[in-house]
């Protein structure tokens, strides 16, 4: 406690006494995120209100040699914001100003704690679009989106966060402010350090400002919900749509188990005997939309798809309802929900569906499969009870097998949730020893005392 009081005194000088906490009930509130793993309490929590304070906080952590874990809204699904080695948790939640929305050069400049949805709304009011739409966007922060390279439902056509990052300003472990990127569309001066910060998961620096690219919104869109008898037929439709050079904005899949679960809790009138459904949305120029819609419909019908289209906005909301209710419905089935995001090349989606079916059977587990079929990012969702030790052991084995077979299919351990503590042990298998060594040397050079988010990724 004496040590903690001393910490409080030192950090108070930077952020003020009312913006740092050592009480155990506050520390316990920052001991977890959305990844179901054992919580670890930090020693102190600080909430800077100005980005200049970030450098001072880093400097203090370095001098004291205590870990620094940066946290936005704490929605991370791989344990990235859990302070596994204690130390200081720095909140970005009060660094939440939208600094500029520029319509001439189409960009927005924001502080790291801006909520993704708030940015999307502000941009929309200016008649523009910020496309990345992670499922947690109502609460997630831009800083977290960049550090984790968040995806979303529109990724197939619009890409994920990295496509929109024009500039990143960040503080390095020596408290220097580093700037990379800028407004010009072409800009090749210096190393691509903004690229280095994307997916860095808090290991290489602390982001203090982000400049994001904005785009004109699509003029038209068409939404359809298509039911199939067999989930494999649905996944073949996904591949064929892409082979035909069509890029829907959204191409989501739900298997029979997921359909049944959504219907059980929400009674929205889904046919529970169907093997799978696809939610497809094409957008762009009205003529192109119409043309693509006709082609997509034809492909769906070829595989026996039962096509429903949205004529009005309300119909669109209705069609989306099933997808929006998915995670919550699955969560209600059992106490613990483990959401995976193993991702394969999109041509291998049918194989991946088969893998998940096999694994569920082999380990006798409840696994719902839904997700962004169009970009190969499925979300096998394991429903279990973390109090049941025997079942948790099978869960762990099942996850190992899913990862192994994902890599065999040329896929990746994580499409959008990050490595954190969740996937650390599998990393060598995906990237190889040489790559991990490179990570380690990079980390050692940039953060010699290892204060930034220790215990994660490598």
């Amino acid at each position, binding site marked *: 406690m004496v040590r903690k009081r001393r910490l409080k005194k030192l950090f108070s000088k930077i952020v003020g006494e009312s913006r740092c906490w050592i*009480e*155990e*009930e*506050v520390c*316990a*509130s*920052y*001991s*977890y*995120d*959305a990844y*179901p793993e054992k*919580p670890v*309490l930090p020693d102190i929590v600080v*909430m800077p209100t100005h980005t200049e304070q970030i450098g001072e906080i880093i400097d203090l952590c370095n001098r004291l040699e205590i870990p620094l874990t940066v946290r936005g*809204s*704490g*929605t991370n699904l791989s344990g990235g914001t859990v302070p596994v080695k204690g130390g200081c948790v720095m*909140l970005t*939640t*009060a660094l*939440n100003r939208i600094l500029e929305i520029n319509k001439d050069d189409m960009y927005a400049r924001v502080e790291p*704690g801006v*909520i993704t*949805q708030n940015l999307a709304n502000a941009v929309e009011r200016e008649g523009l679009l910020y496309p990345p739409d992670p499922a*947690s966007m*109502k*609460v997630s922060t831009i800083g977290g989106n960049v550090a984790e390279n968040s995806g979303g439902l529109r990724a197939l056509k619009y890409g994920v966060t990295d496509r929109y990052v024009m500039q990143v300003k960040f503080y390095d472990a020596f408290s220097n402010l580093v700037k990379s990127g800028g407004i010009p569309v072409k800009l090749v001066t210096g190393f691509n350090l903004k690229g280095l910060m994307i997916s860095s998961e808090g290991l290489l620096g602390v982001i203090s400002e982000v400049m994001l690219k904005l785009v004109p919104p699509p003029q038209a869109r068409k939404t359809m919900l298509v039911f199939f008898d067999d989930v494999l037929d649905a996944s073949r439709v996904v591949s064929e749509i892409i082979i035909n050079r069509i890029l829907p904005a959204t191409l989501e899949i739900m298997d029979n188990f997921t359909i049944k679960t959504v219907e059980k*809790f929400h009674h929205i009138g889904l046919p529970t005997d169907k093997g799978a459904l696809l939610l497809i949305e094409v957008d762009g120029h009205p003529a192109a939309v119409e043309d693509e819609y006709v082609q997509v419909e034809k492909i769906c019908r070829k595989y026996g798809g039962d096509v429903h289209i949205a004529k009005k906005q309300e119909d669109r909301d209705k069609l989306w309802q099933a997808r929006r209710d998915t*995670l*919550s419905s699955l*969560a*209600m089935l059992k*106490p*613990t*929900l483990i959401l995976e995001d193993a991702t394969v090349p999109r041509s291998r989606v049918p194989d991946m569906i088969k893998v998940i079916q096999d694994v569920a059977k082999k380990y006798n587990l409840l696994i719902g499969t839904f997700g962004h079929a169009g970009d190969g990012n499925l979300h096998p969702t394991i429903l279990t*009870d*973390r*109090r049941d030790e025997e079942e948790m052991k099978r869960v762990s084995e099942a996850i190992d097998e899913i990862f192994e077979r994902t890599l065999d299919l040329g896929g990746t351990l994580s499409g959008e949730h990050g490595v954190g503590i969740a996937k650390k042990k599998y990393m060598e298998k995906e990237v190889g020893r040489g790559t991990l060594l490179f990570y380690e040397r990079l980390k050692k050079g940039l953060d010699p005392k290892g204060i930034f988010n220790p215990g994660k990724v490598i």
Partner: protein
Amino acid sequence: MSKKLKRIVDELKELESLTLQCMKCGVCQSVCPLYQKDFFEPSVARGKISLIEALYQGRIESVPGVIKYLDYCILCGRCKRFCPSSVNIDEIFVRAKGILREIDELPFYQKALLKSLIESADFLTNFQPVISVGMKLVSKSAGESGLRTVKFPIKKSVAPVSPKSFNAIFGGLNRAESEKMRVIFYPGCAISYIFVEWGEAVVGVLNHFGVSVYVPEKNRCCGIPAATMGEIDMYKKMAKLNHDWFSSIDDAEYVITACPTCGYGLFDLGVRVAGLESSKKHMDIMVFLKEILNVKLNKKTKGRSTLHIPCHYEHEYDKTLIGELSELNGEFEPLENQSCCGFGGTFSLKHSGDSKEVGAAKMDEVKSKGFEKLYSPCPGCVMQLSELALDRGVDVKVEHPVMDFYRLIKEGGA
């Protein structure tokens, strides 16, 4: 760990089946009025649930620390309403507070006050004239608002206590001239003692449409203030007493309320936490007028009006209410700001500054759009919004919509 703490940990662990449903997604942050203000995890449901878990899993031991943040909650219920996993958050909070209060008891004076105000129906009735006069002595009139401002112990502008209670005037069966049906009207404390004219309007409107109304001879508190302060046994007792009275009346199918929080305390939380089974159907007065009586007005009120939907309103009827007000007032327009008014009963006393901060933005919208009337079918919300209007210099009349229904009816509007 002390023996007492050990027992509490064991009791808290019984809440595990409820807390386990929380998958820590954090969606509650986007709807919590306190989180939106503080950006601080202990303010929001996910944080509070984690604290309860941290206690029973032995990571922390500070019971007062956890109570501090469980108390820092308006109980607006948005977290529960928008929770993707449908976690019974209000039930977790109320039950956890009840358990933790065993170790961290309420200060004696708070407990004594709660007991006399809530458990004894006679107390308020007997002392009502005294309180009414007393309030006039210690407070100052706050101009046209009708509120009175007191400065001690905190500066607060409140609606004056009526010299005679609603029950004293209307207790018993109020017969309609050509009786079609009978209902029970449960007024709750605020209408019994402060907004007596609302009670009169409810009885008047119902009588007009051929509905006879039972009113309790003495008001018994719904128990919600006790529940929010962790006095669960007191809460259960009050909820049961009221339900027993409802059941004693055979020829009424519905219990009508004009305070959504009373409705919530008796029929929603009451059913889940107090384990009561209701023999009657519950309905808010505005919903009853539309859904059961299908009331149509042939006159409209004048001036621009808007609506604050109370947090504890049965939200499946939000659209019904909006529809009714559009028929009542030709220039009606709902508020864009759908957040809480910040009242939260005892919350507004214990966290006065935070309470006002939450509702401030709402009042600013009322001001900027120049509404002349702000409807809210809840006494708590009306008290809070009236005070906010006064504080922020907004010239708007705040009241329950049933008042205008009654006025129009008296003018021959239906």
